[in-house]
């Protein structure tokens, strides 16, 4: 008798109409049918021969094809006489050495950065995402790294408006002097005064569009990533807000600058104190398994989620918003993507957030 063993690094996520096979070693996911999922469930309980016997002759052929598919993609292997129990299940524990993995700052005044710096004596913040509403000078951009010298901060991502002083000399100066900047996004960029093939240490993106902080929260295939730490996090915690902290333009400390609730202002409290406040971490443990509609979606463990803009249809007993992200155009029941912003069912929520409704 032959037995099929699924490799522990292959995760099958069952959705309402399809499944997603995520390969945690090769960092890719693919969509497959529910039939394949049901077969893998059968193969956990019965030998390959017994499973084939259960089906009629025509389906037996299909079963063999499915098994060939699983073996070809190295999603599993065959053992004889019994399943090979020396291979253990992967633990989906998520354990990370950050106190805060991500600080999202809506920047105007640099004094906030010094406040953040002093908080880092006691809390390890790993990444800083800065959205600036105003132009940043060469000196200011250069100073960023200097402020965080000798701290556990590993990376800085910046979104700021483009202006014509940003040229090759400017960018190569920034690249030479900065250790932490890994991404620079220039918005409002109509014509460019820099060459795009410069060898820079950070990735450089530019767009004609005026990016506002409200552009955040879009749920789309292009933002989905298959990697084990992302999946371990999503299985245990909220993939949008876990270990995240936000500071809005007025200095209010929040889970995300776009969320309404705030927990004090950076001018008169500290990040350390906010982290200890009741309620600050209330969304951290809300997994996709407990968000309506999303809990039936095959993409739920690779999804970016968004708790700031939702369809505002559900709330759980603890008062947490458990509605689907507003800017998600996917329907797990039909398996189809559509443009979220033109969906009439979302009109009410969009009006609430003051989004323009596209005609």
């Amino acid at each position, binding site marked *: 008798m032959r037995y099929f063993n699924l*490799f*522990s690094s292959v995760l099958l996520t069952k959705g309402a109409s399809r499944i997603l096979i995520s390969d945690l070693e090769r960092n890719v996911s693919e969509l497959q049918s529910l039939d394949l999922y049901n077969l893998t469930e059968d193969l956990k309980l019965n030998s390959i021969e017994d499973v084939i016997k259960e089906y009629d002759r025509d389906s037996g052929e299909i079963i063999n094809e499915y098994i060939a598919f699983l073996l070809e993609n190295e999603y599993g292997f065959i053992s004889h006489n019994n399943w090979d129990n020396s*291979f253990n299940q*992967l633990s989906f524990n998520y354990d990370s*050495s950050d106190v805060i993995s991500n600080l999202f700052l809506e920047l105007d005044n640099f004094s906030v950065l010094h406040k953040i710096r002093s908080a880092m004596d006691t809390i*390890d913040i790993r990444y800083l995402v800065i959205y600036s509403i105003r132009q940043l000078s060469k000196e200011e951009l250069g100073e960023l790294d200097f402020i965080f010298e000798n701290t556990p901060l590993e990376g800085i991502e910046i979104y700021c408006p483009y202006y014509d002083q940003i040229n090759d000399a400017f960018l190569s100066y920034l690249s030479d002097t900065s250790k932490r900047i890994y991404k620079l996004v220039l918005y409002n960029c109509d014509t460019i005064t820099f060459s795009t093939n410069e060898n820079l240490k950070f990735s450089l993106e530019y767009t004609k569009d005026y990016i506002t902080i409200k552009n955040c929260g879009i749920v789309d295939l292009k933002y989905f990533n298959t990697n084990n730490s992302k999946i371990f996090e999503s299985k245990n915690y909220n993939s949008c807000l876990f270990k995240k902290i936000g500071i809005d333009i007025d200095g209010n400390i929040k889970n995300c600058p776009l969320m309404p609730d705030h927990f004090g202002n950076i001018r008169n409290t500290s990040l350390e104190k906010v982290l200890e406040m009741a309620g600050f971490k209330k969304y951290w443990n809300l997994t996709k398994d407990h968000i309506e509609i999303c809990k039936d979606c095959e993409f739920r463990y690779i999804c970016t989620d968004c708790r700031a803009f939702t369809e505002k249809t559900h709330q759980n007993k603890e008062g947490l918003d458990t509605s689907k992200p507003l800017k998600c155009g996917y329907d797990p029941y039909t398996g189809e993507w559509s443009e979220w912003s033109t969906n009439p069912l979302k009109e009410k929520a969009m009006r609430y957030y003051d989004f323009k409704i596209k005609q």
Partner: protein
Amino acid sequence: MILILSANKDFTTNEVIKWLHIFDKKYIRVHEFELFEIKVIDKKILLESQRNSFYIDDINSVWFRRGGIKFNRLQFQNESVNKIMDETQFCLEDYVIKKLESKRHINKQSNNRTNKLLILEKAVAVGLDVPTYFLADNTDHINLGKTITKSISENIMVKSAFDDFDGILYTSIIDKHEDEVFFPTFFQEKIEKEFEIRCFYLNGKVWSCAIFSQNDEQTKIDNRIYNYGKPNRNVRYTLPPEIHHKICILMTELDYNCGSIDFIKSIDGKFYFLEVNPVGQFLGISDICNYALEKEIADYL
């Protein structure tokens, strides 16, 4: 205070240090090129380099990762004075290193050089299966296609001696005879493998990972020849208890309390011991198998 002896840019050390922060444990990190002077202040021994300064009494645990404590040795003009002072300095240095090693530690500076031949003999002695091996200076008795060769020394990184050569000494199969006699070389029976097993050992605990490299011609002989398009499958694995037990005896005999150990599971179902590396890389299996080994190390220190 924890003393970490490591290389300046060692990524593994960084990951462990992140956990030390979380556990609120204080540490001193020493780089590979730091030179220490031994000083005495109020009858206590102080080690001082350009980057660090600490009393050895204040050190509670030591992680020997890479490099080690190196000393700035004074030279004297008079040859006799130089000789006696050299001996004196050696005694003091030896005392400092042994004193540090007597504290809670992960591996030892004085024991960091492995000897493949001695290790294999000890592995046989503790009852592990080891593929037949021998040294030879010719290929007369070599079974072509069924014998592999690898370096005797453990120093796997050599500065690239030739172009198109990445500097890593890989294991390879002997497929033709050589006419001439050569420097004594290590030969070993090639085992037909089902998969390889990489283990991480720390104080009696073993974490294992099966590496399916057999499906792939490119990585069949040495899984370090990485196939980026289709990486090998790495899967959490549990060794049989008797193998686990023998690993513990072997590591105790070798006086290593931490290290990476390689096995082959052969197609006939046996577990063949290949080698031990006390300073091996383990973040790869830690990440893929979600073992959080960097946290285990930080916790132990």
